């Protein structure tokens, strides 16, 4: 009788591993246990039923363990001991119920891998959109300005629309004026021209250990080409020192 990769020779009371070409001559107790399992193949046989007369429980358990080793040895299970219930000899080999704690190297089916990967990707996407403590939104235009005294100031511009080429022209004019400052007291000067191009927001920022020093300037014009920039005005709004 074939049991997995072993041949069970009932007449000679031996179990032969055909793959490894090893035979196991069974003693009376071992033969009794295997016979019980073979006769109830596919069913759970109780410990009580497996015990032959005068057989000690520990002996019986050792026999089961030996049979499991001999019949198994791979990742497939043919004989399984179910605590408090009994032992089952499966009709066909079955995959083990892998335990995360018992077999950390246990292989996962592709579907599980896929599920885990999808969960991780979904988590990352959600965390990026939901948890992002975005404390700084990048400006549309930035330029480093060096004052006459060598101080470095970052000029940032937020655009109202996509007309960046027009914006650059205006920014260049403003940057040129700011560059003419002897000294600039700010780390950052941020500009934003309103959508109708008539109102200009200027924010000057200086970060210190204790607090942010800042100054808002609002400028409204009657028409787009109206001139207002002058060295005096830059000093008045404290852009130039």
């Amino acid at each position, binding site marked *: 009788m074939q049991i997995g990769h072993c041949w069970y020779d009932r007449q000679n009371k031996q179990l032969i591993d055909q793959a490894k070409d090893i035979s196991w001559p069974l003693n009376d107790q071992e033969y009794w246990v295997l016979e019980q399992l073979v006769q109830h193949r596919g069913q759970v046989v109780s410990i009580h039923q497996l015990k032959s007369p005068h057989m000690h429980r520990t002996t019986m358990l050792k026999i089961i363990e030996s049979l499991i080793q001999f019949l198994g040895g791979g990742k497939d299970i043919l004989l399984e001991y179910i605590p408090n219930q009994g032992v089952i000899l499966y009709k066909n080999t079955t995959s083990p119920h892998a335990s995360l704690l018992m077999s950390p190297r246990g292989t996962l089916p592709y579907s599980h891998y896929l599920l885990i990967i999808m969960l991780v990707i979904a988590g990352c996407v959600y965390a990026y959109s939901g948890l992002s403590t975005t404390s700084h939104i990048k400006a549309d235009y930035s330029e480093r300005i060096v004052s006459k005294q060598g101080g470095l100031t970052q000029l940032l511009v937020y655009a109202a629309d996509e007309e960046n080429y027009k914006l650059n022209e205006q920014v260049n004019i403003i940057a040129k004026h700011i560059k003419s400052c002897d000294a600039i007291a700010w780390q950052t000067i941020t500009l*934003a021209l309103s959508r109708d191009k008539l109102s200009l*927001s200027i*924010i000057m920022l200086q970060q210190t250990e204790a607090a942010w020093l800042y100054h808002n*300037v609002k400028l409204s*014009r009657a028409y787009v080409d109206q001139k207002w920039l002058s060295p005096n005005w830059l000093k008045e709004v404290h852009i130039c020192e």
Partner: protein
Amino acid sequence: MNKICAKLLSVKGGLYIGALLFTLLMIKLTWFTEMHMYDVQCQASAFDLAHLQEGELLRGDMLLQLIEQNGRLSLAYYSAFDEPIREYAIFEGELVTMHSGSLTYDYNVNMTDYKFAEVSHLNDYLLHELNLDSLKLGQLFPQSIQVIEADLERHFLVIKFSPSNQLWACKILP
């Protein structure tokens, strides 16, 4: 009991536990993440080139106070240009959406109270800032406010009004 433990410790059980924890995290993030706008006060030096006085640009001060309570926004503008004229405009709004990734708050806003001078600098400024043709009491319009710089430890915030593209650097109120 042993059976339950064995099931929980199996790979499948681990996956189920992971999926459950993930779901709970999503629920927590969706429902309990703070979504309200910061209460801020902002001051600005204002220059009006549209109403020149003897060829000189007009100087003044502006104050903006933004407070949100339970999704209701209160936006108060005060300005002082010509002595002794003081102008103000109060707006109220309802939070429509909050885009957590870009920290943008979309409101539906309407003006509830105002005091404008005959030649109003504040009125003109607000038309730029709120991207409107005219200001009327009760007139509902959409307004987005984006937080572009935030330092909560130092109680500092920079906000941008959209679509007008106007900036304010502000102090976060306690």
